[in-house]
């Protein structure tokens, strides 16, 4: 890894704007992206500090997911820059991005993220195995994570045999197993009812805080966003940071 973001940077306790002394971990600024004729992002910026949980809100179609994809190096923006440590994600090669996503980031989506043929424990172990860890060790760690998220009972089942809430908790385990510095969660509760949604978001935020991972949480549900430390609103492809206004 060439970037030099200090792993030892003190994370803010749990809430509030981080102290000025701490360097932001991930900075997206002036991001623009269009798909065909549709302008998804016009001028979006977001700074993410180590360990903080930022909710990205906004009406559907406002560009929330695109912002997340740009920040995570999944989509290359047409303009702007995404700084992660010393690295500008908009400039590094595809394979470098892949490496980065595998080792530094974790992902959580609304649905359809678990490989249907693999058992839950294999799904959770996947990111470690992609990193070259042996199957046995990866799966042992995966079982620990499943226990932590209270879904050890589905370890041997396939995602199709799990309930939505269980599946999403398995996905949380998978997002966190590599101990990422940033977790990108795109509507993680979108397909769940209130109770299950709350359980998932609570487990995600608790686990992220415990492992000092920062979280970019895209959601349109205020109650979910309430688990974050601050909010960023995206409207018509532009961000409005509400953190300072409150």
């Amino acid at each position, binding site marked *: 890894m060439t970037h030099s973001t200090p792993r030892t940077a003190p994370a803010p306790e749990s809430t509030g704007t981080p102290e000025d002394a701490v360097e932001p971990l991930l900075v997206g600024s002036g991001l623009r992206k269009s798909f065909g004729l549709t302008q998804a992002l016009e001028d979006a910026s977001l700074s993410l500090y180590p360990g903080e949980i930022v909710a990205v809100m906004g009406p559907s179609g406002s560009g929330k*997911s695109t912002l997340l*994809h740009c920040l995570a190096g999944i989509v290359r923006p047409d303009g702007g820059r995404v700084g992660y440590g010393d690295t500008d994600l908009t400039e590094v090669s595809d394979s470098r991005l892949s490496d*980065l996503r595998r080792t530094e980031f974790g992902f959580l989506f609304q649905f359809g993220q678990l490989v249907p043929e693999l058992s839950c424990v294999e799904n959770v172990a996947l990111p470690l195995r*992609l990193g070259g860890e042996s199957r046995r060790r990866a799966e042992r760690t995966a079982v620990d994570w499943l226990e932590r998220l209270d879904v050890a009972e589905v370890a041997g089942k396939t995602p199709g045999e799990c309930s939505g809430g269980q599946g999403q908790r398995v996905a949380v385990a998978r997002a966190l197993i590599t101990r990422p510095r940033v977790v990108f969660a795109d509507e993680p509760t979108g397909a769940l009812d209130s109770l299950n949604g709350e359980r998932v978001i609570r487990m995600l935020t608790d686990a992220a805080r415990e492992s000092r991972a920062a979280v970019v949480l895209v959601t349109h549900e205020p109650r979910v966003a309430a688990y974050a430390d601050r909010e960023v609103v995206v409207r018509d492809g532009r961000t409005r940071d509400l953190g300072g206004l409150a």
Partner: protein
Amino acid sequence: MSLRERAPGKVRQERARPSFLKDLWLGAQLSVRGGREVVLRTLLTATGVGVATAALLLAAALPTVMAHLNERSADRLDYQVAEYPPPPAGEDTLLFSLADTAYEGNPIHGRIVRAEGSDPPLPPGVSEIPGPGEIVLSPALAELLEEPENEVLQRRFDHTPVGEIGPEGLMGPHELAFYLGDGELTLDNAGNRITGYGGEPGPSGDEPVIMLLGAVGVIVMLTPVVVFLGAAVRFGGEQRDRRLSALRLMGADRGATRRIAAGETLPGVALGLALGVGFFLLGRPIVESVPISSGLYTADVTPHPVLGPLVFAAVPFLALWVVLGSLRGVVVDPLGTVRRAERTRPRLWWRLLLFVLGVSLIVLSMRLSLAGNQWVPMVSVGLLASLFGTTAVLPWLVDRLFGRASGGPLSLQLALRRLGAAGGGPTRAVNGIVVTVAGAIALLSLFANAWDDSTVELAETIEEVYADQEFGAPGFQLQTDLRSVPVGSDPAGAVAEVRGVEEVLAYSRVDGVTDDGSGIRVLVADCPSLRLMADLPECSPGDAFSGVPGLEPGGTLMVGGGDEVNAAPWTVPEFTEFDGPLVEHPWYGLGHTAKDAVLATPEAAALPEGIAVPGTLWMRADPSASGMAEELKAAIAALDPTARVEIPFASATIPTMIRMRDALTAGALAALTVIAAGLVVGTVEQIRERRRVHAVLTAFGTRRRTLVASVLWQTVLPVLLGIALATVVGMALGALIQRLVGLPVAFVLPDILIIVGAGLGVAVLTTLLALPPLLRTMRPEGLRWE
């Protein structure tokens, strides 16, 4: 309330249940209005149906082909329909002698003819009997003679062409045939006189064989088409699922959605039928250029009046069956379509039963020594049954090998799990491969009998064969009979000029009868020749030799008698007694000895005028001299067009059989190509279905090569498995048949290797073609579509 007032039954009456046909029609309309995917699916379906239709039409033409061949063969029957005793010569009689020969292994149908009057019978396809020195050629032979590299053949047919044999007189466009006019033809040297050509077409004995081989072939070849269709109708399945769900929500019941889904393929099927007719009509003229045996005329390939229309009825049902099969295990509900996760286990037992039944049929057919060709239907049915039975083993094998496999790289694990879970798709394609490849290998082995018939192996080397039939002191190997040796001619000299011919001996012979009716052969040659023909004492011109008991010099022998030639008296010259056998060719020898032969020098034996004096040539040739055989044939043809010389061979293969083998292999390759197309379509569709998983995996940082490798494994593994299974089963079936017929077990290895190689090629090709869409799904943008 007005709603209450209406009787519940009335509502139902107003909306009569849509009929089966209406559902189909609705589906058809829906498909016409679909987007790009539907159009693509319609085109794919049409292609599959088109190929199937064309193949079936071709198969439906087989009876016509056989009937036409049989008719044409009957129309030109000649010696078979000749009267015996021969009728007297007249205005309407034709003399002919058989002159069937071969050029470089290709048989030539030949007749030497002489019209005895102004109204001779004409062979079919010939408008005039050629006069002396004139020849009528088949187009194929004419073409062969045009080519400069066949100069030696040109010398053999150095006559004036006066016409071509029409199609009605040939078995096919590639038949080599000629009718050569000859003024010296007599009933005695020709042997045949007829007043008309043609007889009743006999029951063509090969028909059931060809029909059944055709049936096996068609079914083996249709399997890949079904595989392709299966993949085609699944194309764009997601979209269709959504559409069907919407229909369910609007009140269509399960049966209706099924019918509507089936109806969606109808435009494709209709288009496919039209395409099939097009393919057939376009492909039909091509049969004329296929040089298998005599080939076929375009007109021969006409679908049977009953079977042809049947194809048009059967193909839509085949397509419907495939569509409904593709919906098996799919539950269309108003809110979505569920593919049942747990695989419905294919009923193993009946397929295994099928396999056992097939093998027992084969064994039985061989054990019961059935008359004629009755074994063919049993073997064919047995073969098909065992082939389809074999496919039962596949899911089990997949499950065994892939279901619980662990270890290996991640890409392999992903692929194995996918295979284990997906069941249907890949296995179906592999089923096609198994049936095709195993079928082709088994058929190749089944034909091994025929190959063995077509390949006669007499010895390791040609020299050995020549050495085997050496006779006489100089070691002659070859003999040919000439119908006449004109006085003063030097046949031996002409032949001796041929390169590779080392020694030639010529003699004349006449058969005579003594007073008491016993036959005596009179052989006339010069002294050096005579001394090679028997163990003689001193010889000088004017000498004669014999050991016939009671033969008196000065006595009279009647010699040279025939059907139309009266024997002439010949005075026995002074002769010296000798004893012992005459030297004879080991194949043609009749066991003549001094006791029934007179050997005379020309000076001693002036044979009477007016009788036919045939001659014989003995030759010693160097088999390794290149082109010797054809040159020799040409030299002899110049002496006597009706003369034939048997050229020995160490092993001979009838080219037709080789071509049939090639055709079988080519057919298997074509079938594999169709399977490859089906595999590509199926794989692409699968990749599209999984684009979300791929996008997520990419987001996770999965490397490209991991996913590519996983897809590669996914296609290569089942194909490998299928080919391995097919090779084993095909060879086992072939070996079984060979053992049962008591033949040494042998395989046509090069062809097997070609087929297996092609199968591997299919796997690699499929992966390569599936790569671009795969890479597309791997763009993380795939996450956007939810």
